[in-house]
């Protein structure tokens, strides 16, 4: 009843307001996606741009229809023929999932500590989390090379302490990739988590305590479930970009580090095969979008049930 009322009240202004984000998605998501999708159905050519058919509006309807008939799913078939692509996808999802878990384990205590700290400190703590963004992402990843390499700061420090005799080989391995991803994406997890933990109603915890609930149980029964939306938002913000990450595996990873971002780079630059690399990108998008949509549906059902 109230829903119907609000719908009927939505005037021109309301629609205009909604149109803005939809327009944004149309221009900056849907249009580029359609272009990439179209290229993924094309074939390689020695030309500018290096694929055909290219649609030229001046050539008329006939040429457009001929071009359409040239499109095919060949490149997608190709992706299934070489195990390299599947291994890259699986390995990327695996690396991203493990990194997300580690980020959560480190990020939760940080966000919790921030939310429970005296109110006067919070802006400063928040600032400290945001501060790394003031330096270029690329430079921060480069700095890790200096820290992790064989003669780097970390090895020198550990050898000075006498903990190790030989330098640890970390740079150019998957371990370095995990470190790079966790470090780079930690703020993306801490910020939404902090937002949901800060809103937590303290009186609930007090009530639990009054009723004889031990603190760890109160934390597990009250704080964790109520912070779940923040956990999920934060995990998505880490997991999704980490799957397609290119810079970190390229700079910190070794040649055995298999990630889809690097495979895509090789297709695009070394093979000059824009159509296949576009197909790789479209599949990557599907891999990421499907679980998100399923999750959204689940959430919606839950919400309706609760009401």
């Amino acid at each position, binding site marked *: 009843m109230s829903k119907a009322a609000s719908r009927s009240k939505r005037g021109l202004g309301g629609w205009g307001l909604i149109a803005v984000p939809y327009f944004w998605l149309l221009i900056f998501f849907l249009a580029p996606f359609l272009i990439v999708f179209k290229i993924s159905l094309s074939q390689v050519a*020695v030309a*500018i741009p290096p694929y055909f058919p290219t649609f030229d509006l001046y050539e008329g309807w006939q040429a457009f229809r001929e071009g359409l008939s040239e499109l095919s799913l060949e490149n997608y078939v190709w992706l299934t023929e070489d195990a390299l692509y599947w291994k890259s996808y699986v390995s990327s999802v695996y690396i991203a999932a493990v990194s997300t878990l580690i980020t959560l384990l480190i990020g939760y205590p940080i966000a919790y500590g921030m939310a429970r700290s005296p109110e006067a400190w919070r802006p400063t703590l928040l600032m400290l989390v945001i501060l790394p963004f003031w330096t270029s992402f690329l430079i921060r990843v480069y700095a890790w090379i200096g820290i992790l390499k*064989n003669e780097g700061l970390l090895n020198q420090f550990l050898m000075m302490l006498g903990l190790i005799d030989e330098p640890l080989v970390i740079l*150019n391995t998957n371990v370095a990739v995990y470190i790079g991803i966790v470090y780079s994406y930690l703020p993306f997890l801490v910020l939404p988590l902090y937002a949901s933990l800060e809103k937590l109603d303290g009186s609930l915890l007090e009530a639990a305590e009054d009723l004889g609930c031990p603190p760890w149980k109160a934390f597990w029964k009250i704080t964790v479930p109520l912070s779940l939306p923040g956990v999920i938002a934060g995990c998505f913000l880490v997991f999704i970009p980490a799957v397609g990450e290119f810079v970190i595996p390229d700079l910190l990873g070794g*040649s*055995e580090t298999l990630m889809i971002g690097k495979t895509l780079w090789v297709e695009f630059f070394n093979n*000059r095969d824009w159509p296949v690399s576009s197909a790789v990108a479209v599949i990557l998008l599907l891999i990421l979008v499907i679980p998100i949509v399923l999750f959204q549906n689940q959430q919606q059902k839950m919400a309706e049930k609760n009401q």
Partner: protein
Amino acid sequence: MKLKTMLLAVTSLSVLGGAALAQDRSVNVYNWSDYIDESILEDFTKETGINVVYDVFDSNEVLETKLLAGGTGYDVVVPTGTFLSRQIQAGVFDKLDKSKLSNIGNMWSDIEARVAKYDPDNAYSINYMWGTTGLGYNVEKVKAALGEDAPLDSWDLLFKPENAAKLQECGIHVLDAPTELFPAALNYLGLDPDSKDTGDIEKATELLKSVRPYIQKFHSSEYINALANGDICLAVGWSGDVLQARDRAAEADNGVTVEYAIPKEGALMWFDQMAIPADAKNKEEAHEFLNYIMRPDVMAKASNYVYYANGNKASQEMLNDDVIGDPAIYPPAEAVENLYTVTSYPPKVNRVVTRSWTSVKSGQ
């Protein structure tokens, strides 16, 4: 009367505008990193009044992808011969207007003849530098690992697994450039380095895989510092880069002696060519830039700085002795006979080559 003043105002404005335009002449150059003495660019601006907007890349693949996307905004670019030939085919470049290149007579006909394989009649490009892909090594460390009679002038250093295994300890780097490593492996196996046969490429892949466990890294620029600092003892690298490492080590006086060898089995000879994209905005200025580069004194200055040989015959008298006299830079005639050139792979074969390279590097 009024009309006249207005006309006068308009014409004087357009004259001013014209003068301003003349002052704003510029040329956008896209070259390899660390590949020129920057004072050459300043001198060019002083002499011609043309501003140089200079930008750098570090792989042919990056340059090619930009060129194939079109509308790069660059007026002069410097691809390697094998890449150039494919780009010419794709219609990336315009033919040079040789009437604007009065210095073209300074060029070295031997080099022009070899470049004709990529750019028939040298219609689209001029040679900037050329060099070889060979072995850079740390003399002391290699001798310590393999003994005094180590095969320093042979691909055996890398391609014999027993040698590579001994050098693994002190570190081996290899260029991340499949189009240069497959020819090297093929040549070592006694096959045609320019072979497009996938069976041959498979054999080369086997050879590369047999030494893969001993290679620390595939990278196309890190080896310069690593050699100079003594972090590694062997690198498959580009001649001039290894020689830069040699000089850095000598300057640092850190007990590291770096040498470059053109292996006796042969090595790849490559050519970096300057060309003008068809969609360049400042073609006039680009021609002036190329003509300036072809001046003997300018070319000599560039080679003296980067330690690569150039394709300019007239510049040779002005080269420093440690450049023209170094057989690693200007190999003597009999060594040149051992050098081979390769052409670009057709798309299908190229895919096999990159895929094999990925499998060599990652074991996948």
